[in-house]
């Protein structure tokens, strides 16, 4: 069997709920072996896109192929090639981790011994062997998530869908899930991941689509998206919050960009094109006005800034 070069390919996917368009001519190509991030604010249509691609939701227009299999023509074929990890851990909380894996293995139509072996293998791989026979109801959020992923990987799917896999997890749990995703990709699985956390997309995704109100508003590598925002940014942190307005005005005048205030109340940042001359000019003007500067930094924009810029 030749493996398809495109894990996911969607053209013009459209989904309407009554009069509301939840997904509007959605295009997506995920090359095999890569991670694609779907990023967007609440209600952007991320879950809708994933549920359609995982055969859970019918769509009104467009077409899609998963691992070379057409979504409309062969939904069972798609189901054999995908794993889905939804927003909540979809495992049986009364049963043990081992029983869950055996149950789902049987439902994937593995023979009893194969299901048993596969369960042991996955428990080992997701570091759950020690807790394997305890009821899942007593698992931590991170462990439950890992079991959830393990259950989605029983048939070693070509494509794994992860809908907000780390929502509600503490930093340690998030790290565990990230490690799992990296391992999977190293083993050749393709991943489509939705998230509201920009650092997550930055950490994991090879490419990112930014969704807003059902439309893809930007697509590219994290680096490309950051570059879209007009290069570097200059941050100025003042000693005295009262000087913030004057500082913002100076920065706007010098660079011609729109200054943004940070939540800390003492930092202003502005996009800059000519880095060095902007920096020297701003410093000179601030000095002339007698503003005491505490910190000064030239940096690349964060994905947060890209995101806010694109979905405003």
């Amino acid at each position, binding site marked *: 069997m030749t493996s398809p070069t495109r894990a996911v390919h969607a053209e013009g996917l459209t989904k309407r709920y009554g009069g509301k368009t939840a997904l509007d001519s959605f295009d997506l190509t995920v090359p095999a072996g890569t991670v694609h991030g779907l990023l967007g604010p609440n209600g952007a249509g991320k879950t809708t896109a994933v549920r359609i691609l*995982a*055969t*859970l*939701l*019918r769509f009104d227009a467009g077409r899609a192929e998963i691992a070379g299999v057409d979504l409309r023509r062969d939904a*069972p074929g798609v*189901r*054999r090639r*995908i794993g*889905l990890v*939804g*927003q*909540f*851990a*979809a*495992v*049986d*909380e*009364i*049963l*043990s981790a081992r*029983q869950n894996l055996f*149950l*789902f293995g*049987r*439902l*994937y*139509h*593995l*023979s009893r011994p*194969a299901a048993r*072996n*596969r369960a042991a*293998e996955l428990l080992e791989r997701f570091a759950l062997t020690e807790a394997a026979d305890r*009821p899942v109801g007593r698992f931590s959020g991170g462990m439950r998530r890992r079991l959830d992923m393990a*259950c*989605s990987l*029983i*048939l*070693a799917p070509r494509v794994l869908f992860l809908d907000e896999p780390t929502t509600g997890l503490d930093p340690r749990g998030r790290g565990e899930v990230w490690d799992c995703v990296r391992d999977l990709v190293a083993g050749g699985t393709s991943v489509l991941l939705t998230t509201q956390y920009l650092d997550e997309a930055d950490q994991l995704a090879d490419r990112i689509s930014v969704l807003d109100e059902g439309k893809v508003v930007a697509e590219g590598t994290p680096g490309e998206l950051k570059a879209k925002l007009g290069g570097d940014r200059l941050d100025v942190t003042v000693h005295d919050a009262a000087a913030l307005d004057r500082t913002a005005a100076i920065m706007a005048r010098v660079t011609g960009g729109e200054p943004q205030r940070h939540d800390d109340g003492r930092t202003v940042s502005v996009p800059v094109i000519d880095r060095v001359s902007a920096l020297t000019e701003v410093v000179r003007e601030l000095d002339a006005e007698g503003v005491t500067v505490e910190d000064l930094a030239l940096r690349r924009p964060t994905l947060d800034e890209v995101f806010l810029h694109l979905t405003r």
Partner: protein
Amino acid sequence: MSTLLQPTPDTGVPYRVRWAITDAWTLTTRETSHWLRQPFEMAVGLLFPIMFFLMFGYLIGGDISVPGGGDYREALIPGTLAMTMMFGVETTMTAMAADTQKGVTDRFRSMPMSASAVVMGRATADLFQSALSLVALVLCGLLTGWTWHDGLPSMLLALVLLLWLRFAMLWIGVWLGLVIRSTQATASVQILVYPLAFLSNVFASPESMPAWLGALAEWNPVSATAAASRELFGNPGWGGDSWAAAHPVLLAALWPLVITAVFLPLSVRRYRRLSR
């Protein structure tokens, strides 16, 4: 990958039938594993109808008399059996709602397994559990002096009619579970089941109720099954002049049929609507 991850082929009609059966059985064993994991909950479930019987038989209904001088507790066992079958709707509904809310139903739907098995597995397990509660209550009845008087075939027919009511409740439960989709909201439905169970001939004679309530109670499907079981067990009943009171066995066969005919298609439609 070290293990054989090649699932057996699952296309073509023979395979589909085969997987519908094995998948349903796999899901049935999921429920039986629940019982083994939670023996306490299982025991409470079995004791619940027994508690009702003891409460009404010895505490509340001590001096209720049955027309013709029959023993109240003799009439109570078939009534409580029918009520237990009706309360089964809660088991089905809660399990269905929990799976749907937690995304387990979606996981099933995203897998290459048989779609009908999701409900058929539930059906087999729920019927099996209800059969166990029937046995538990029958044993309790035998210990307290209750028995059947019209021979084994009639007695078995009564048990079949009881499970037939439970089968109908299954479809109401599946439908409600898919409509409600939240385990919190199931609690309010559970409370509503009580008046429906009490508005029947299970604990009191409909003749003793205000006329319009009595008429509702006589036509209640639970009453039909309770009265039919009393007749088939040869236990005393309330009697009555209505058509419903005169034809309990026929009604106990028809009611579940009607309920199934309505709620089975509704459940299937609801299940399909998950992908809307």
